[in-house]
């Protein structure tokens, strides 16, 4: 079989070299009554031509492509230039291991260095790491970083309008670390934004920091600068989550807003929807956090001839050296996804990113304006969004709204009743640069027919 270069004569030769008669002798330490069990319940091998047919048949059971989708909520359908796939699929990028032997890994390492740099530019922070698993686990790592650096402080404040899955993940991560506590800060339903008064009251002596999202899960831009300043007055860290990385070229950077730790999801930079993974968690921080940061870091150095080169650095914080005292247990990361993001970012460039980001916003703004003409639906937060808005359905149950939208081949958005009790009839709708005016008009017409 094509993945096994050894021929039967080769195997014979090896057995002869080893001085044994049968391969089974090499497995003699395995309990013999458990070894070489029957493979009867394992399906037969499928050759390549048949494999393709089988997966095409499975793919036909996916009907989502029959719809125009306005789904967002932490995964976004953006345009990916062809070069991203072309370049990232090169075997020299796809098949090497982590660059522990840097002399033969300069391709991966320099690409990572460039990715790290671009992420610091976009976030306005001092350093970025070379990736984490996804936005949700990055948020959990951000929380742990704030708690770790906060030393004597054991409480983290969590915004209730942070992506609900991210909150779940943070809760799972903190649950078994009994020395830490989570407290929640609610948001104002009228504005969709964090209740600043409640935040101020809740920042106590033992609060290491506050983790919040902007634009938040309801699509609204938070007053990040104000939040950071309040936290700093009380010696607490400002931890911002960004689930839609495409907002970074459009909104003022977290760094300029005095954020200490930025974490989030960079799937929007060149990764397909992938049914949720693999995605690209990122973390960018102010200089004081560098030695406490989880994940790999690429640093620039020189070789014995004085030539510029790159290596993984500060590895002493990582699990393979510090073991139980490591800053994180992370080993494998999302390096290849970060490579794709780096290619995407350098291809789009400054003007491309800013223009695409603006297109996202303008498309959303157009929808928001047009909805004004209806009375049976409304946009809850009419301004200061990036590319997601909350659409309230007033005249019919939201499940009917979805059924009727689907009859128009439209996936209208993420049902907010999945996550919030007081948003029973609301839908989170997302527009990207891939939605044309015609698509948006079709959607608006369909909504109009629901009167």
């Amino acid at each position: 079989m094509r993945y096994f270069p050894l021929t039967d004569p080769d195997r014979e030769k090896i057995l002869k070299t080893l001085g044994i008669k049968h391969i089974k002798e090499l497995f003699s330490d395995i309990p013999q009554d458990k070894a070489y069990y029957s493979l009867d319940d394992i399906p037969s091998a499928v050759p390549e031509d048949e494999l393709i047919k089988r997966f095409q048949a499975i793919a036909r059971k996916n009907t989502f492509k029959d719809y125009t989708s306005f789904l967002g909520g932490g995964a976004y359908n953006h345009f990916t230039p062809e070069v991203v796939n072309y370049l990232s699929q090169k075997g020299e990028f796809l098949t090497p291991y982590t660059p522990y032997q840097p002399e033969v890994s300069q391709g991966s390492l320099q690409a990572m260095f460039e990715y790290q740099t671009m992420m610091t530019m976009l976030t306005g922070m001092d350093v970025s790491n070379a990736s984490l698993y996804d936005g949700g686990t990055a948020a959990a790592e951000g929380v742990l970083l704030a708690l770790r650096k906060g030393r004597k402080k054991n409480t983290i404040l969590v915004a209730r309008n942070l992506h609900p899955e991210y909150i779940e993940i943070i809760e799972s991560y903190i649950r078994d670390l009994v020395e830490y506590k989570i407290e929640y800060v609610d948001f104002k339903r009228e504005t969709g934004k964090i209740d600043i008064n409640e935040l101020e009251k809740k920042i106590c002596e033992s609060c290491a920091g506050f983790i919040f999202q902007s634009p938040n899960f309801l699509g609204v831009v938070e007053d990040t600068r104000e939040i950071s300043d309040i936290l700093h007055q009380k010696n607490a860290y400002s931890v911002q989550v960004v689930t839609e990385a495409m907002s970074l070229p459009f909104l003022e950077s977290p760094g300029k807003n005095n954020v200490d730790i930025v974490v989030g999801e960079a799937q929007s930079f060149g990764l397909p929807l992938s049914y949720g993974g693999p995605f690209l968690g990122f973390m960018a921080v102010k200089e004081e956090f560098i030695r406490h940061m989880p994940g790999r870091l690429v640093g620039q150095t020189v070789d014995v001839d004085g030539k510029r080169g790159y290596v993984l650095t500060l590895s002493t914080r990582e699990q393979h050296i510090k073991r139980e005292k490591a800053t994180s247990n992370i080993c494998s990361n999302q390096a290849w996804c970060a490579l794709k993001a780096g290619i995407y970012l350098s291809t789009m460039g400054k003007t491309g990113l800013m223009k695409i980001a603006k297109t996202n916003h303008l498309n959303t703004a157009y929808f928001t304006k047009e909805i004004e003409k209806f009375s049976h639906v409304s946009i809850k937060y009419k301004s200061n969004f990036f590319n997601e808005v909350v659409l309230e359905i007033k005249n019919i149950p939201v499940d009917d709204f979805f059924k009727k939208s689907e009859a128009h081949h439209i996936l209208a958005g993420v049902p907010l009743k999945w996550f919030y009790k007081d948003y029973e009839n609301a839908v989170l709708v997302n527009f990207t640069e891939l939605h044309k005016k015609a698509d948006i008009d079709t959607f608006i017409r369909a909504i109009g027919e629901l009167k």
Partner: protein
Amino acid sequence: MTMKLPELIFNISKDGKNGYSFSEPEFSDDIMAVDGKYRRTDIENFPQLSEVEIVRHYTNLSHLNHSVDSGFYPLGSCTMKYNPKINEKIAGMEELSAHPYAPLKSVQGNLEIMKNLEEWLTKITGMAAFTLAPAAGAHGEFVGVKIVRQHLAEQGDPRKIILIPDSAHGTNPASAHFSGYETKEIPSNADGIIDVETLKAHLNKDVAALMMTNPNTLGIFEKNIMEIAGVLHANGSLLYMDGANMNAFMGIVKPGDLGVDVLHLNLHKTFSTPHGGGGPGSGPIGVAPHMVKHLPVPIISKKGDEYQVSYFNQGIGRIKNFYGNFLVAVRALVYVMSLGKEHLRKVAEDSVLNANYIRKNLENHLDLPYSSKTLHEVIFSDKGLKVKTLDIAKRLLDFGIHPFTVYFPLIVHGAMMIEPTETESLETLDEFIATMKTVLAEAEENPAKLEQAPYTTPVRRLDEVFAARQLILRWKPSQTEH
């Protein structure tokens, strides 16, 4: 060879260059709905390049990498096997790349794929159920220990300690720590394995579990595993198996038959998904029947002909966004389907043959610290050498071979861990063996030559001290061409 590193994109960047093509916005700025104070007006120093320059840049970067596609890559415990290209084609199918919040009825194919892989994994491992959510092996270990914790907590006491062999990978104690446990190291014996008496000496009611890699990082089968499982269970403790080395006995024996309660697998090792320069991976967790309720959400099930998903259960909660690294799971499914019952067993058999062939041919040239049977990876020490293990590794680079794993596990001095995998030909093995003999001879006659190696790689030995002291972790505008 003096291949120059490509210039950094920031130094090639120039205003006016453009690398993309996309339709203009259809609406004017007049309708913008965001206050000026929130807006960004520039991304300082962000690069602008033409498409040509981008393609050349990354193409030239790719030439600087050694990869499985270009040559032998015998990193122990990493299982650098060939990454099949049909896996890439199928994982790239647009019809699979749905939004994770798409209505379940519109993604039945994707749910079928995940459920199929789960079933394959249960058949191969003998565990009762799987979750595909964890994003990597370490993530899986973390999840697995949380499952142990919840299980014991529900019985009254989560306990305090996880026992970990001295040969374990660093992610083991790190993962245990992040799940709220202290760790205690348990020594391997002269045969390189954990013996029952040593375990008993470390066992008490504070011990929640033993985390055991099998075969361990020495490439040796932990043959006392069933008795160990019995002793642990009698103490109310659990057995966690780190399945990173599953390549050694996939299709030969099932961990579920050996008394394992919780197991993680690495799809990017045993199941051929590409390493991508460090990830993405996927670390599915399999559990014994009494632990199934602790699995994290989401849980995929089949009711009649329909696949359903449950987002709430009695388990440890959510540990990853959405469903896990789905497209990595797709690649793994294509792989196991390609192997089928006819070839499944050959993975372990050929990888064990290859590792033993290397062992036999080098054991008179290098110190073999353990005489126990080798499975899929063999470990040598630097005893008696005039040079350091690192120097041998660096010299191998001059011969186009990626070195073995160095200095791990910590219990072997100057460890050299060699895992050829089953996807290497006898010719490649012979070439490796010949090269090793050449390099070892050089080490005897002219150690200084190795100490200055490598000579022919794109860059030579790099100054890691400089890197850690200077901490240049990003390009800055003052950093111009060089």
